[in-house]
């Protein structure tokens, strides 16, 4: 089972990476929408909230008046009402697409397991909440599409032994659809998104600096595309709901309402089976192919001065600060929560005690990774660095730096490039290296979220600990590149040789 899953994941990831690189070519990795799918889903959710608030203000929440009030929007001067309707509907579609792709991408990258399991499991319930909120929105218009969706949903729910009286009986005749029933519709369409927002709060609990909006250019581009679509292809109502007849031809929104034809083409129970199996699988995935637990960061009380840099840089809120047991009152010490630790080593790279220039046979730092200590990194340079060679620091998740090994090139692969204390660049140069090449995953593609950003900022002296200004900038290079992009590094290597 595990082998099958891993094989499917590997093949899928290869395909996904190819597509992602194609998008990189157009957008650049920093603005690549495929690298910001969660944030794009949040953006669509915000657009839904903003457009929905205005729509709710003009909506007549009664069975008799709802259709008329929404239809009137399509005839407002300047088409603003039509734009509003389109923005609302198409944002819902965009949310469904980005949410689906977000799940696929996270799974392909193995992000459903290990320390990310909490985020995965709290994310799964957001899918049915989003679906329920979206489907409920069609009922509020109370046109033939809303009529069809409301009845199909009621019949689908009635297939489960939940209610003594079938919900679908509420839609037998027009007289049975009361304003009170419309209050329920409003609750579904507004109450469920509020639950979704609450669930999103849980989903983001275990990451720091949660990104809920894509970069500005991407956000503007997405909003512009949705508004252009709303203008070019306006959303219009079907005829008003009439329960004495079945709607003949529906312009179905397949992104959001696919469950109804699925239930009709098979059976309501079969559709529940499909949905139930899909969600059971999503919930089970973290345990179906678990990842081997890596050793977590360890704090050395004697070398931790409570500077809080590891606390600030940890992408997963795994570090907290507590009173220091060995030092005077007021001093702090970093404390690692093993359940939250991603074993990325970014904290070790952030620690000011990780500088290799410290004297002593053994380099002990404030916080370190047992599987690849800062001391081991320094020893590696001491032993393997030949004068005149180029040191390539990379990470286990980006370009395979080992593939660059050749006479005069010393590759050093870290848990994450941000595990590299920037002083190591200067140390390698002073120790005889002709140049230092640092590579990290592309922006937005870092396995540990901030590895690329923190490394770039530390090397550019924008973040502590920083690379000293006295280091000759011509003798080192920083090249973000994804797995399989070794050619980008080769040209950078050549540039360093020529310098």
């Amino acid at each position: 089972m595990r082998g099958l899953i891993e094989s499917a994941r590997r093949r899928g990831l290869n395909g996904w990476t190819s597509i992602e690189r194609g998008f990189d070519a157009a957008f650049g990795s920093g603005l690549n929408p495929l690298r910001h799918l969660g944030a794009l889903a949040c953006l669509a959710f915000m657009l839904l909230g903003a457009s929905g608030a205005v729509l709710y203000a003009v909506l007549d929440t009664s069975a008799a008046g709802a259709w008329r009030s929404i239809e009137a929007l399509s005839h407002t001067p300047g088409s603003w009402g039509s734009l509003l309707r389109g923005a609302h509907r198409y944002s819902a579609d965009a949310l469904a697409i980005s949410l689906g792709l977000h799940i696929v991408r996270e799974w392909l990258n193995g992000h459903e397991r290990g320390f990310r399991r909490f985020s995965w499991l709290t994310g799964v319930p957001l899918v049915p909440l989003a679906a329920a909120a979206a489907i409920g929105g069609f009922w509020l218009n109370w046109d033939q599409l809303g009529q069809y969706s409301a009845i199909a949903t009621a019949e689908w729910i009635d297939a489960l032994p939940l209610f003594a009286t079938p919900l679908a009986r509420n839609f037998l005749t027009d007289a049975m659809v009361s304003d009170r029933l419309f209050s329920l519709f409003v609750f579904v369409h507004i109450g469920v998104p509020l639950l979704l927002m609450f669930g999103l709060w849980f989903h983001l609990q275990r990451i720091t600096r949660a990104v809920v909006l894509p970069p500005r250019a991407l956000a503007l581009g997405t909003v512009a595309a949705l508004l252009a679509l709303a203008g070019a292809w306006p959303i219009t109502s079907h005829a008003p709901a009439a329960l004495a007849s079945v709607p003949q031809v529906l312009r179905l929104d397949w992104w959001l309402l696919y469950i109804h034809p699925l239930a009709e083409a098979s059976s309501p129970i079969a559709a529940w089976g499909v949905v139930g199996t899909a969600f059971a699988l999503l919930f089970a995935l973290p345990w179906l192919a678990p990842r081997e637990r890596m050793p977590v960061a360890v704090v050395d009380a004697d070398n931790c001065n409570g500077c809080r840099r590891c606390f600030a840089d940890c992408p997963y809120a795994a570090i907290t600060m507590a009173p220091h047991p060995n030092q005077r009152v007021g001093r702090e010490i970093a404390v690692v929560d093993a359940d939250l630790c991603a074993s990325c080593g970014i904290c070790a790279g952030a620690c000011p005690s990780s500088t290799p220039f410290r004297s002593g046979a053994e380099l002990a730092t404030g916080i370190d990774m047992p599987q690849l200590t800062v001391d081991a990194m320094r020893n590696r340079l001491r032993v393997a660095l030949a004068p005149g060679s180029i040191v390539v620091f990379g990470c286990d998740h980006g370009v395979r730096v080992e593939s660059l090994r050749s006479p005069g090139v010393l590759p050093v692969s870290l848990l994450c490039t941000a595990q590299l204390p920037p002083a190591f660049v200067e140390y390698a140069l002073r120790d005889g290296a002709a140049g230092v090449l640092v590579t990290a995953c592309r922006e937005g593609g870092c396995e540990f979220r901030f590895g690329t950003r923190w490394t770039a900022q530390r090397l550019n002296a924008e973040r502590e600990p920083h690379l000293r200004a006295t280091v000759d900038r011509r003798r080192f290079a920083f090249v973000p590149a994804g797995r399989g992009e070794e050619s980008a590094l080769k040209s950078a290597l050549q540039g360093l040789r020529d310098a």
Partner: protein
Amino acid sequence: MREALVTSARAWAGQAVLYAAFALAIGLFSHWPSYRPLDANQALIKVSFVHAGKPVGDCRPLTAAESAKLPPNMRAPTICPRERSPVTVEVDIGGQAALRRTAMPSGLSKDGASAVYQRLVVPAGEQRIAVRLSDDVRANGFTHRSESTVVLKPAQVLVIDFDAEKGGITLQ
């Protein structure tokens, strides 16, 4: 310089194409393909009711011993079974059996109403519809019957319900 300009122009064009493809995919599948819930010459009959069957047994007088076991405020001259009869409905369309369903009473003590909701897709046009309903296990055969001929337009919904105040089985 020229190469950089060409690369930049290509990137912008690529972005425009991808944004357009994104919008097109959303727009297209939010309208198309159109969906027909029912074929053009079909109509829909919904058989649905919520009806409490008759009690499964008769009321009987309490014996003196049974009465003595009850608190004084709960002593009644007769005792009736709580459980209701299941409700069975049969529908024939054009002389053919289209539905037979027995709905059990709801509730842990089986003292609630029985409910049925069933869709029957039929050809539009004239239909002879016979409905039989039994709600009393003590009675032999069906307790309510209805037979009528209706002309169903394409896509029309005919609701077969049960309303005791309107005389039992209703077609609307």
